[in-house]
């Protein structure tokens, strides 16, 4: 049981980091489905920098920087040029898949070395607590950062001026504009911040969960992070719960698979996606999204 809880929290961490970033972006009224490719870019940049310098910390910084770069690409087309956000997001995913695949082969010629990984950092004393000790206090810095980030994003959204302006822009860009808030600037910055987090989330995969980069290794985790935001009803607390739920579902899948049950393995691999679909069908679909989500703001355009 302790091992299962520990694995749940560990596997939830990249989803949580990516989803918190996407939450910040979506509360500003922008949907970034390029988060999948952004994670992949972070996974690759983090891996490459950690291998080159021997330091996972440098890898982490590189992952965040790569995320920012991809975010700038997305925001330039989706926020500044106001092209369709879904289309730009899909384009970003394709470009990231191609660029990281190409980069990996150019650098390592199909034979990548192992990256130095971030070691677990148990909190003395607390890590030995029964049941929740290993899950909450014997994890890598990524997990602590993810949990801390949830508090920062939650309070940031509800208690700060920046959060208030962000929400105003997401609920009604027109009204926010009338109040003198620079809509596109708020959205641009939100996309950059969210993309940096997505990059870090990708680095969790190459600097903690494994020590290698493989082509397309995010395997839809960015898309599941989008579902986590919906299932979490666009609130930080909800996103934490939803990410932990998906972490638990994945941990359970690994556990059952290891038991070597009679069930064929594709059923297990299907499991997280089916769970996501079911959850959305039961709970998420009708949750309240920011009112101006997905709408580029043009000052001259008629409302609605």
């Amino acid at each position, binding site marked *: 049981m302790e091992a299962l809880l520990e694995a749940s929290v560990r596997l939830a961490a990249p989803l949580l980091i990516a989803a918190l970033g996407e939450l910040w972006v*979506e509360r500003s009224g922008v*949907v970034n*489905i390029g988060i999948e490719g952004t994670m992949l870019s972070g996974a690759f940049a983090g891996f490459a920098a950690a291998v080159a310098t021997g330091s996972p910390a440098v890898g982490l910084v590189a992952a965040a920087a790569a995320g920012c770069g991809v975010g700038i690409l997305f925001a330039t*087309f989706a926020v500044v*040029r106001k*092209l*369709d*956000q*879904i*289309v*730009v997001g*899909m*384009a*970003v*995913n*394709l*470009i*990231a*898949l*191609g*660029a990281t*695949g*190409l*980069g990996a*082969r*150019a650098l390592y010629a199909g034979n990548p070395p192992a990256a130095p990984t971030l070691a677990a950092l148990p909190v003395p004393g607390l890590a030995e607590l029964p049941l929740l000790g290993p899950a909450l206090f014997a994890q890598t810095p990524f997990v602590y950062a993810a949990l801390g980030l949830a508090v920062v994003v939650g309070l940031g959204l509800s208690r700060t001026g920046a959060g208030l302006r962000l929400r105003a822009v997401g609920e009604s860009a027109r009204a926010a504009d009338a109040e003198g808030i620079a809509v596109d600037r708020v959205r641009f910055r939100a996309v950059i911040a969210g993309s940096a987090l997505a990059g870090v989330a990708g680095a969790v995969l190459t600097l903690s969960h494994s020590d290698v980069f493989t*082509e397309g290794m995010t*395997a*839809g985790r960015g*898309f*599941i992070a*989008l*579902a986590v935001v*919906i299932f979490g009803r666009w609130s930080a607390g909800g996103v934490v719960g939803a990410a932990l739920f998906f972490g638990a579902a994945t941990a359970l899948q690994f556990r059952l698979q290891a038991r070597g049950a009679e069930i*064929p393995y*594709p*059923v297990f*691999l*299907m499991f997280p*996606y*089916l769970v*996501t*679909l079911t959850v*959305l*069908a*039961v709970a*998420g*679909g*009708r949750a309240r*999204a920011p009112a101006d*989500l*997905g*709408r*580029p703001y043009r000052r001259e355009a008629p*409302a*609605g």
Partner: protein
Amino acid sequence: MSSLARGPAALVRDAVPPTLAVLGALALVGVFVALLGYAPGRALTALLRGSLGSGAAWTATLLKASPLLLTGLAVALSFRCGVWNIGAEGQLLVGALCATAVATRTLPGAPAALVLPAVVLAGAAGGALIGAVAGALRATRGVNEVISTILLNFVAIQLVALAVHGPLQEAAGAYPKSDALPAAAMLPAIGRLHGGLAVALALAFATQLLVFRSAIGFRLRAVGHAPRAARFAGISPELYGWLVLALAGGLAGLAGAFEVAGVTGTLYERISPGTGYTAIAVALLARLHPLSVIPSALFFGALEAGAGAMQREAGVPAVVAQMVQGLVVLLSVGLSVARPPRARGLRTPEPKRGID
């Protein structure tokens, strides 16, 4: 309105932005490839030779273009209606799965006159079914189709894996693939070119007529362009979204059936090299015009066919094709005047609410 009906001048004018997008994307990728230390000139030569340089190269291009044409039509039809169907990949896979099941399990040994239509219809029906699942979730539970179709793609990949490791695995049991389709289930072909290509071309014209010349097409475009106005006019965006996802799924499923019954002759796990995702680039480069999907599918078919030669002869990894696709999407949407329907993001279906 298609530029074909407005004469050659309009045709040329409309062809300028997509051509610029293609050239721009190739140039950008060329620079990137050169920065990584490859020889872009050799890569381009190999790309052209592998896609257009010989009869065999042309055949390869046309064979790659055929499923891209059908899935590209599926995406163009969906996006026109404001339905963000990212699920052509999964719909293709389920189509291939159903076609194989009928050919190798339900009707082995039956005459071609019976088997072939059954196989093709099974493919279309399978794709339509998985499209309709996304449509149902959207219409009845308000689940956004971007998310549901992407998730269903991953489910479909595992469904195929399940089938070729289990009920559809070859009798010999050596490899995770299906039995070879019986000769009666295979599409008639000239050389390696299968008859599915002709069907795909015919369906491009049929889709053009459906979208621009039929009452249903008018309502589909209305839903895509102005969902609230459509609702006031008594057209249900939910119902038409459902219809469109099923229709698009059918087109993509047909592509899957044609792949097993025209190209591979068997079902295996990695039967689609991401055709359903490339289809999004195909549809957007064609600016969502069904007839323009034909040249667009040819371009991306040539890119895919040539990428293999590029990897062999110039050492540039074939995965670079994905970068070209992404950049073509960005540039063609960025450069074109006609945009896809107004963004509605994750708030589908359009909520019923008062006038702002």
